[in-house]
Structures are given as C-alpha cells and as structure tokens.
C-alpha cells in the first residue's frame, strides 16, 4: 500500500490560522495509530478564508478540507481520511459528509474560474523541493534563455507586453533593454519585495509558496542584461517569506542552478536577501536602493534612472516580485502565449488580492479585463459582515475609492486610468456600510505623515496639514465647510503636483475620491457642484 499524501500549507496565512498545530496533530495521531503518511507543507492555494486547508490525494485529484483545526483531525481520520480506499476511490460517504469537506480543490469554483499562470505552482508543490520544482516545469524558461542571445531574451519580455506589477506598470522589457544597453562592468538585478500596501499579499504568497520561480525570473533577468548579482529586498514584516527565500537560495546555489554558473553552464549569478526596516516608502525603488546601500530610505531625485545608475551606481533592473516571477513562464511558453491573456495594452494576468471586509478573501489570478464586481461578489461573495458594500479601494493606500458606477469597468491599466482609478499591485480592500470615509481620508493623510521620508515639503508637511484639515472640515458648521473643503482640495493639488514620489503624489487620491463620492461622510450635501454625483 502506498502511503497517503497529505498537504497542509506553510503559508503565513495558514500558520496564523493554526496550520502547524493541525500538522502536529495529524503526525502525532497517525503515528499513534501506526499509519505512515507523506505530509507536504505546501504554499497556499489562495482560498484564504478556508485556511488551514488540508488536502489529501485521490486518483481524481486532491480533495480539500477547511478550515481545519487540530481537534478535527481525529474525526477526519476516523472517517477514513488516511484509508487506502480514499486514495483510490475518493472520500467515503462518512468523510464526504464531514462539514469541512470541500470536494476536489481544483473544481472549487473559486479556484476553477481562475487563470493560474504566475501562481501555477503555488499551493501545488513543496515550495523548497527542487525536484518538485523541476517536475512542474521549473527551470524550462531559464534553460531556453541560456540557449538564446541576451537581446532575444529581452525581446521576449518586450513582446509579452509584461508591465511592472508593483503598481507603476512600466513595460518591463523596455526597462531591461535600457539596462542591457548601458555600458558598465557591473550590473545588478534588484527585486522589490517591500510589499507594504494594505490589502496586498501576492508577493508574500509567491515567495513563501514558489520561491524558485522568483529566483529563476531574476536569473533570466541577469542573463538578459548582463548582471552578475541580485538582491531581494524583503520587508521585515514578512519573516516567513524571508526564511523561505534564504533556504531556497541556499539550495538552488548548492545544486548549481545559480551561483558560480547558471544551471552549471551559464554565467555567474549570486543572489542575496536583504531585510527592510519597516519603512513603507522603501517600496519606492530609489528609497529601496538607498536602504540596501545602508542609508535612511530617502527617495532619490530622478534622473538618473536606476536603469542607468542604480544600486551602487551600477545599471540596475529593479522589478517587483510578481513581475520577475512572471518571466519564467514567458520564456518557457513564448511571449505570444502570455500576450494572449489580457485586455488592451494590459497583457497577461494579474494576481488580484481580495481583502478587507469580504466573505471569501484570497488570491485570484485572472487576466486583465475582469471586473471589480466579479472579483468582489463572484469570488469574494460580498462582505464578511453581510452588510452592503459601501466603498472599495483598489491599488493600495494610494489608490482611490472606486464608486459603484465603475465596478463593471474591465480592469486594465488604461481603462482604470480613464475613470480616475488605479490598478496598482492588484489589492482590493472592501468596506461595508459602517465605514466612515472621512475617517479613512484622515487616516490616509496620517499614514503619509507617519511614513513620509521627509525629503519633499508637500509630502512631509502637506500630510500633517491634510489630516488636520480633514478633521476641521468634518467638525466645521455647514456654513464654514466650503472654505475647509477648498483648502483641502488646494492642498491635495499641491501634493499631487509637487511631490517627488508617489507617496505624497498619490496620497490625495483616496482623500479626493472619498470627498467626491462620499461627501455626506464629511457632513457635506450629496448634490454639489464639485466632484462627481
């Protein structure tokens, strides 16, 4: 009899929900009953409201249970979880009747309706097992890149239409081309894993669930532009991701995939991990470079672009985790296959993150062109509280609140920009009707004040003044509100136009959208000349 295979995620979201305790209970009980099992600690499938998800292998595919707690294990085993009949013909009637039984994982609508490209392996494999990675298509992209001229590798990324997934959406291939063309003895690949936006966790899930994909993507980038070293800058709030990355790099180096020679035959590529210090603005690429170089995370003036003078003055490719992790599939399957997904000039897929007050929060990878309504309701299932959705913020703390009339706009960078919204890093934060948008507007300003690097005045001082003006606007009697509103809009205008980076330049977006779409929360009449109806 072959041993039953069981998967319990090691993703931080599963650990926080008790995955380690479930794994311990399973191991202990199985050994007490003389059953030997193969337990794999995988990444998360992204159905985060169901974590910890326990999966068991059957001939028809993996069958999922969730959310499982340690004290459910005895009952599950009693009902035949680890029986040979389960592995062969699926769950018994008693097991299928267990309240936590979910059915075949990949047939769950939440999962089946997705298009997993960048996240194809996340949740499927053991994140650190190199043989698992190779067995599921790992290293194919890098091997293809090694057989090509560097210029052709850049050409593939250009043709794929891949744009920066961190939020700025700059074409990745163009950035690579600039670095490739810059004459310099040393170049670097920097991965921005400083995923500070509230409502986003795709970088974290990828680093914890399929770290070799990121490593392979960085190696391809190195090959394409002629870089010999790379750094992954991970935020200090992600200790699990950091530990997984360090272990993955050590194993990939020891096995000769990276290090002295890529895949044992290519040029050298040395990869390091650097831990951030809890500074949001270090997600801005030049502040991030300052931080790696050992200074405060102060934004640099551009030009020079990091592609010309980046880390230590070397030409540097700096891309987000998801951007780099998308590259292996582009090389493996060809640029056209990736380009076939998407809408307009936004090609490929985006791992959306459904968060906040939502019943079924998690990660949904879908091609551009999906709508917010589909993500919030078809996937998300509406609010967790059961109350109506009042507001939804897309694109992190610097993204505006998207009003209901735009929930059916197909999400792509241009279509969103046309209605004054941002896609950003794909984070979606849902609020129910108890939310106070004036309070959230004030918080946006307070957060900017807390995290501003202080280099430019509109951001450093404007954010503090902004929080004060929002407060005064809310407190003012109706007759005096007009003057405060004008002041707030004027201040936002200064911040948008006069800030050095997106921190000060975009903080006004959520504030103004709150003011435009939810004036009653500020004590302002709904029908007004300013803003939108």
């Amino acid at each position, binding site marked *: 009899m072959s041993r039953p295979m069981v998967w319990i995620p090691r993703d*931080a979201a599963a650990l926080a929900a008790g995955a380690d305790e479930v794994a311990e209970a399973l191991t202990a009980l199985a050994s007490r009953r003389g059953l030997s099992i193969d337990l794999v600690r995988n990444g998360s499938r992204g159905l985060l*409201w169901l974590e910890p998800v326990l999966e068991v292998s059957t001939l028809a595919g993996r069958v999922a249970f969730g959310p499982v707690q340690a004290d459910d294990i005895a009952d599950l085993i009693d009902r035949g979880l680890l029986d040979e009949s389960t592995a062969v013909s699926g769950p018994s009637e008693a097991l299928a009747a267990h309240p936590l039984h979910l059915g075949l994982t990949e047939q769950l609508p939440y999962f089946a309706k997705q298009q997993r490209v960048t996240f194809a392996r996340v949740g499927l494999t053991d994140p650190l097992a190199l043989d698992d990675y190779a067995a599921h298509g790992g290293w194919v992209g890098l091997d293809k890149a090694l057989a090509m001229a560097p210029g052709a590798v850049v050409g593939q990324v250009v043709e794929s239409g891949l744009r920066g997934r961190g939020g700025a959406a700059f074409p990745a291939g163009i950035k690579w081309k600039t670095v490739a063309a810059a004459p310099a003895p040393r170049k670097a690949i920097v991965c921005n894993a400083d995923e*500070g936006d*509230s409502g986003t966790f795709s970088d974290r899930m990828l680093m914890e669930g399929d770290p070799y994909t990121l490593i392979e993507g960085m190696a391809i980038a190195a090959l394409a532009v002629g870089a010999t070293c790379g750094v992954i800058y991970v935020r200090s709030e992600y200790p699990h991701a950091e530990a997984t990355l360090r272990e993955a790099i050590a194993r990939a180096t020891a096995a000769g995939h990276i290090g002295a020679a890529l895949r044992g035959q290519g040029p050298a590529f040395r990869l390091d991990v650097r*831990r951030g210090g809890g500074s949001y603005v270090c997600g801005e690429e030049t502040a991030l470079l300052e931080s790696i170089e*050992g200074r405060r995370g102060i934004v640099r003036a551009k030009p020079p672009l990091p592609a010309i003078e980046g880390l230590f003055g070397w030409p540097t490719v700096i891309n987000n985790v998801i951007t780099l992790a998308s590259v292996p599939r582009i090389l493996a399957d060809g640029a056209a296959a990736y380009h076939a997904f998407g809408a307009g000039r936004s090609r490929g897929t985006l791992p959306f993150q459904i*968060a906040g007050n939502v019943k079924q*929060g998690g990660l949904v990878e879908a091609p551009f062109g999906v709508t917010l309504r589909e993500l919030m309701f078809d996937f998300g299932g509406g609010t967790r509280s059961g109350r109506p959705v009042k507001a939804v913020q897309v694109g992190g703390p610097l993204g505006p609140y998207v009003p209901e009339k735009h929930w059916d706009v197909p999400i792509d960078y241009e279509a969103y920009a046309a209605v004054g919204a941002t896609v950003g890093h794909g984070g979606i934060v849902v609020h129910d009707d108890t939310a106070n948008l004036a309070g959230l507007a004030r*918080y946006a300003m307070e957060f900017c004040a807390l995290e501003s690097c202080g280099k430019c005045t509109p951001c450093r001082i404007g954010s503090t003044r902004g929080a004060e003006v929002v407060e005064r606007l809310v407190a003012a009697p109706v007759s005096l509100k007009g003057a405060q509103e004008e002041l707030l809009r004027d201040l936002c205008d200064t911040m948008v136009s006069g800030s050095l980076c997106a921190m000060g330049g975009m903080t006004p977006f959520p504030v103004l959208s709150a003011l435009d779409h939810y004036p009653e929360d500020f004590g302002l009449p709904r029908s007004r000349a300013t803003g939108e109806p």
Partner: protein
Amino acid sequence: MPSGSTPRAPAGPAASASERELLSQALALHLPDVPTDVPGGSASALLPILHHVQDALGFVPPPLVPEIAAALSLSRAEVHGVLTYYHHFRSAPAGRHVVQICQAEACRANGAEALRPPAGARLACAPGQTRADGGVTLEAVYCLGLCATGPVAMVDDKLRVRVSAAMLDDWAVRFESDKP
C-alpha cells in the same frame, strides 16, 4: 543658557563585552558581502548588522552606535539616523510580550480601529508604549500581509488573524500568568 556654550553630550556608558562580541560576530558575517570597489560601500552592511544585533538582544544598545559607526567608516549621526528612521529598530528593550495590531485599511475594514481602546485597557498599556513593569509593549503596525483575514496582529512573533476583544482577554490572562 547662552547659545553656543552648550557642552557636548557626555559619552554614554561603554558597550559591554558581550555586546562587543555580538558586534564582531555581525561584522564578520556581513562585512565580507560589501562591495569593496564602491566608495562608501561598507555602509551597505549597516542594516544587516543592526538586524543581527536586534535579533539577538531585542534592541540595539546605544553604546554600540559609535562602535558600529567606526567599523563601517560612518559618523555616529549616520548610524543614529538609520537606527531611528526605520520603525523596526528599537534603541531600548521592548516589554516581555510585544503585541502589534495592524491598523492599515484592510484591517480597519474589519474593525481594527475599535480594538485599540480595549487593547489598551485589557493589556493595561498605552498604545505605542511599554508598560511600566516591562510586561507588555503595545504597538500599531501597518500591514502584516494577511489582509483577507483581519484584523491581524503579531503577538511575540506569532501571527494572529480575526483578532477579537475576547482574544485580547486571553492574551492578557496568559501574560499575567507567566510573570517572572
């Protein structure tokens, strides 16, 4: 006091032998990684060194600041600047238990703001402070990356999701029961 005559702050207490030992460990580990052909390149070991020290001690002892500065050819001001710029680093020990409750948007959407008063009351600790008896440090953080299952907290390096007032009670009881 007439301006210009302010005396220089006296040098603080010297670093202890064990603190020095920890620093030389950190230097041995991280200095070989810095680019030697870049002016000021050794500064890039600063954050890894600060992390190494804080990982071991829970904070970066102020007497180590001038020593770190000297080792990396930096001024004390530069090291102090970095140490105080990043929210993660501490210059004084935290409480025996550290409770960090996320206050960013996704957690706010699930009532994180409303957890602040009960957290302060039940843990008997002002937000952003360490309790006088050193039992608890209570802090706000901004995003721990578990935004689908908020409110989220980090309690002594362990992540917690769907944090409720009842959970705060449990922590308070547990913290009281393991007083030294």
